[in-house]
């Protein structure tokens, strides 16, 4: 299969050394109710044939708009490319008619999007969606297109392609859908594939598979790849060259090695420092870039990064051009030479890790043999049972942070909901400060709800859009009569806002007027208003940009020290969990796989699943990443309706044997304080 595709490719490939894509001085703007937003300003770069270019930046930096500008897929009514040239394979894309551009899309340039769950049409078969471009661009007959679709599905690793051709997207998992998207992208042998956050919505083990596949195919078929991402680890592993974007402009550009090891722009330096990393000792505090990216509708003159830059000088009020750097790249910083000479370094604070200390050995929360089963299907029909949580036990001490990691569908959020008493457990007990929640009185439950608070993942949908920040934070004060007096309540709201690093004027604002990080701070202030002793943080920082994520984590740690709070920190990002937790629980498919204190778990993981997880997470260092063996995890999460017999991980485990398919391994203490549910270790 691969050979035939390869042959087709070599025939098409022109031997010239011209760059495949030239983007020159691109300006894209949006007309919005807030005025003209210049989303991309003066962006220039080239992509060679077969090269992998990564565009990195935080949300709103203009990276996706750049991609959509190349494809000319921007919303017609509001967006306009006001200046610049885009030359692809010798043709100027901005001068083409709509019809000529349509011929290039899918044929010359293909694009893969972020959300595999919504990027495929739910009411059309997978087969139709893959064959569509084949029929349009290559004029294939039905049979030819079907044969080619089967070939493509095999190529991207979809098992049983013939049988799955007539299925619909909802019958595929997220990872499989992204494979389908890649198959569609590859269908007509494009010369360039643009992948916009292709793995952001996927679990880390699936992410590794998809990226490995894309890189492999682009090498084999000599397809150039533009990967747009905020994940620096992904960039380090796969990119030849990197563009760092900040506030609609290119901040730095260079080879992956240069940008990662010798960044020449303070923003790249800060970005690299603010990522919690698995390959380095945990610092006392996460580095952050203070402040927020500028509002593009009212962008300040001069260097865009200056308001947040610790090395700002008078000259930064003038717009810096892109200077060539000593590493062969470009940097938009007046002081790039000083950075190169080593005169400026991002303040290092790796220091000694300060552990938060549990204030008592008596557990605050004690979970024993907790199970939660959901029945699927209505009462009229025979339905299956989904064992979302099965036999989970752990303790949390006062003032402690317990990390709970696992991929989607592992039951970690259900555990959080059970503790919050939002779901009733099927069996098992939850004791909070000595009170058993299952037979607590109404009064006990009310006290409990006050002591246990939650911070949710999505700061966009977890705040009521019609309430002001002050009302949101003040509501629990009224409900629980914590501060009955109105003026005192206002004072308390102001105090809470200051504690989470917001100005007191924010109380008048509505959630949509705040940025993601600010909203998450409001969520924290709302939780603090109840004076809790325990907070469940359910993916509390996953939706935030790297630099903002660091700010929130630091805030959570600071509040913990100040008030002796205990956290259950639920997350899928291993590096973040490592940074904040004292002990870590690893869950898979509803069960606990491993429990250990943080350093032990990350240094000497015992359970093969933990090893696989740690191995699958890329670290932001090209030297380490490029020298690494291809990743070993295979397969996908099994179906909850047909759980595997024996150890739940046996279907994907590299060391599974017949015994693993028969015995459910108990969670045993393998070393002091180190528990694992595996019979092989």
């Amino acid at each position, binding site marked *: 299969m691969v050979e035939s595709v390869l042959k087709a490719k070599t025939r098409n490939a022109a031997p010239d050394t011209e760059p495949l894509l030239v983007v020159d001085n691109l300006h894209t703007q949006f007309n919005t109710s807030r005025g003209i937003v210049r989303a991309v300003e003066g962006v220039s770069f080239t992509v060679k044939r077969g090269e992998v270019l990564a565009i990195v930046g935080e949300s709103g930096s203009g990276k996706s708009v750049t991609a959509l500008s190349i494809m000319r897929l921007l919303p017609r009514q509001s967006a306009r490319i006001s200046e610049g040239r885009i030359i692809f394979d010798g043709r100027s894309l901005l001068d083409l008619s709509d019809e000529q551009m349509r011929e290039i*899309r899918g044929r010359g340039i293909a*694009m893969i*999007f972020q959300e595999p769950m*919504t990027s495929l*049409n*739910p009411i059309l078969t997978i087969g139709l969606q893959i064959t569509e*471009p084949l029929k349009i661009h290559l004029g294939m007959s039905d049979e030819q297109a079907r044969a080619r679709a089967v070939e493509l599905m095999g190529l991207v690793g979809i098992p049983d392609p013939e049988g799955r051709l007539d299925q619909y997207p*909802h019958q595929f998992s997220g990872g499989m859908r992204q494979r389908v998207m890649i198959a569609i992208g590859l269908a007509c042998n494009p010369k360039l594939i643009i992948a916009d956050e292709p793995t952001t919505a996927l679990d880390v083990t699936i992410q590794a598979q998809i990226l490995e596949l894309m890189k492999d195919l682009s090498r084999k078929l000599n397809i150039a790849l533009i990967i747009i991402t905020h994940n620096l680890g992904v960039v380090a592993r796969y990119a030849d060259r990197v563009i760092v974007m900040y506030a609609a402009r290119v901040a730095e550009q260079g080879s992956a090695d240069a940008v990662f090891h010798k960044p020449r722009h303070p923003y790249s330096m800060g970005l690299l420092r603010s990522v919690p990393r698995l390959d380095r000792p945990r610092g006392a505090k996460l580095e952050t870039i203070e402040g927020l990216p500028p509002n593009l509708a009212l962008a300040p003159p001069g260097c865009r990064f200056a308001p947040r830059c610790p090395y700002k000088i008078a000259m930064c009020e003038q717009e810096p051009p892109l200077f060539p750097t000593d590493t062969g790249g470009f940097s938009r910083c007046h002081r790039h030479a000083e950075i190169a000479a080593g005169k400026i370094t991002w303040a290092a604070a790796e220091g000694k890790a300060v552990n938060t200390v549990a204030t008592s050995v008596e557990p605050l929360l004690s979970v024993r043999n907790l199970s939660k089963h959901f029945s699927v299907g209505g009462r009229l029909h025979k339905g299956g049972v989904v064992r979302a949580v099965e036999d989970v036990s752990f303790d949390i001490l006062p003032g402690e942070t317990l990390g709970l990691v696992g991929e989607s569908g592992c039951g970690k959020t259900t555990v959080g909901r059970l503790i919050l008493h939002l779901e009733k457990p099927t069996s098992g007990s939850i004791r909070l400060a000595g009170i058993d929640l299952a037979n607590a009185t109404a009064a006990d439950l009310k006290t409990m709800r006050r002591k246990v608070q939650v911070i949710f993942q999505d700061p966009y949908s977890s705040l009521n859009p019609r309430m002001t920040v002050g009302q949101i934070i003040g509501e629990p004060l009224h409900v629980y009569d914590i501060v009955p007096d109105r003026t005192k309540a206002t004072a308390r709201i102001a105090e809470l806002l200051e504690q989470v690093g917001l100005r007191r004027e924010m109380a008048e604002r509505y959630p949509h007027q705040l940025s993601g990080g600010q909203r998450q701070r409001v969520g924290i202030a709302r939780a603090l208003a109840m004076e809790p002793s325990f907070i469940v943080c359910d993916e509390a920082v996953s939706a935030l940009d790297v630099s903002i994520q660091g700010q929130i984590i630091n805030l959570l740690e600071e509040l913990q020290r100040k008030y002796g709070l205990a956290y259950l920190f639920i997350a899928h990002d291993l590096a973040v969990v490592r940074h904040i937790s004292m002990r870590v629980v690893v869950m898979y498919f509803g069960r606990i796989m491993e429990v250990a204190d943080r350093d032990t778990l990350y240094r000497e993981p015992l359970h093969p699943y933990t090893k696989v997880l740690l191995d699958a997470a890329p670290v932001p260092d090209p030297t380490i990443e490029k020298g690494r063996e291809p990743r070993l995890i295979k397969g996908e999460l099994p179906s909850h309706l047909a759980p595997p017999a024996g150890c739940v991980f046996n279907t994907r485990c590299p060391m599974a044997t017949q015994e693993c398919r028969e015995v459910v391994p108990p969670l045993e203490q393998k070393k002091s304080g180190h528990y694992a549910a595996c019979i092989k270790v």
Partner: protein
Amino acid sequence: MLRYTINRVLLMIPTLLGVAVLVFFMLRVVPGDVVEIKLRGDGGNVSQETIELERKRMGLDKPFVSQFGDWMIGMATLDLGKSMWTERPVIEEISLRLELSLQVAIMATIIAVLIAIPLGTAAALFRDTWIDYVVRIVTIGGLSIPSFWFGMLIMLTLLGLFNWLPPITFTPIYVDPVANLTQLIWPAMAVGYRYCAVVSRMIRSSLLEVMNEDYIRTARAKGVYEKVVISRHALRNALLPAITVIGLEFTFLIGGLVVTEQVFNLNGIGQLFVQSVSRNDFTLIQGMVMLIAAFYVFVNLIIDLLYAVFDPRIRYE
């Protein structure tokens, strides 16, 4: 799917039973009596005895519960009883008018859907341009102008321009299609306008939503022709919510056209309803309410099943 359908059909029974209880006992609470209206309505001087005799003959002297029981037993054998006024079987009375009402409803639906799909689509695709504005004016007109008044406009126009009015006697379509259509096309248009306005606004808004979906962007990124993007990828998804509206509007037209029927002098279900209510013709009212209720439940089932046909994510198992 079959199992689901059977379940749903069985679930219709308690729903209809509830309707039966409600309508039966609510009617008995309403003051007035069919026998008195029938015998004394025109000022006739009839003795109380005659009235009691007549009541006895019609079984109105029995206790409510036993009357209800009789009615239920009749319904179980598909016998809705006899009209208390004309003494003809209820089924016969209804079926005479149902043919006409059903035909008007079907024609109105066809007219509405045929116009609404292109209208709503154009409005969505040319959002905030003059096309959208024109469509908006037309549809808001449809929503705000009462159907009977629009019907009167149609009649006056026909009279003024052609000095012609549609026939007032109903000829079934299988007897004389031309005569049938010349009579019914006008009321179908009158109610179809509102219907079309409702559906096209629905299509416009759901199409606008669908056009922002990620899979539309994917289709464009594949280089699919724009007209295929719209017809295959967008419109098919956008029509799903419109199906619900079409079904609900359709059932409304059966029995909901009281005034419009008056304007066009049609002898339809709406007319019969008004007549039987003013005569306190209990059995006929009950029969019609049951018929319309059954229609609602049935059309809703059809809508749900249609959803499963159009949307592969919905599978009733």
